[in-house]
């Protein structure tokens, strides 16, 4: 019940295209869903996050869509650029006294010119 399932494992997108990464969870106690971007050899950087009281959050070219009833959330990267090539992790945490972020296994995104 603590799992966050992330797909696809890898993704190749043309420059200017839309990258879509999906995550699903089972634990209904999760109430905070961040996305992290990680470049090779670097620590993950917080990209964008959402709480389940909203269905969508947009920051620049990055949008999180959240479907509470389906227990799914996704990251959309509009106008994908080669500089977006990185590994993306979705995560979830139950704010009720929980310290542990539960991470998906990651999606390696490659944006080709």
């Amino acid at each position: 019940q603590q799992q966050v399932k992330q797909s696809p494992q890898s993704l190749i997108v043309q420059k200017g295209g839309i990258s879509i990464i999906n995550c699903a969870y089972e634990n209904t106690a999760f109430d905070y869903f961040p996305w992290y971007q990680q470049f090779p050899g670097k620590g993950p950087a917080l990209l964008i996050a959402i709480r389940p009281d909203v269905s969508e959050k947009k920051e620049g070219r990055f949008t999180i869509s959240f479907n509470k009833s389906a227990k799914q959330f996704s990251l959309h990267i509009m106008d994908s650029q080669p500089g977006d090539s990185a590994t993306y992790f979705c995560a979830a945490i139950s704010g009720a006294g929980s310290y542990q972020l539960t991470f998906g296994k990651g999606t390696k995104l490659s944006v080709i010119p």
Partner: protein
Amino acid sequence: SQTIHQWPATLVQPVGSPLSLECTVEGTSNPNLYWYRQAAGRGLQLLFYSVGIGQISSEVPQNLSASRPQDRQFILSSKKLLLSDSGFYLCAWSVIVGGEQYFGPGTRLTVT
């Protein structure tokens, strides 16, 4: 603004040798601190977290230990490294429980 430092950046150690990795946070007080390990091509596994000086909670039993001697300092240690301890070690901090966690640059540990 807050910054988080980790050192060393890379480390190669023989099996059976001791380990000490250090993490420090600047620009905030009484942060929650975390140690994660990331195996190659895998997600992140929480190893330890700390809510205050001297307060350490372990998530995964292993031959690693953690200490928090100062408010913004978190140390990961081992008395005798195993081959399976190789990985990318990440320190993170947060202001509140259940909120955003911010990661450091990581330490790449190779046990030979």
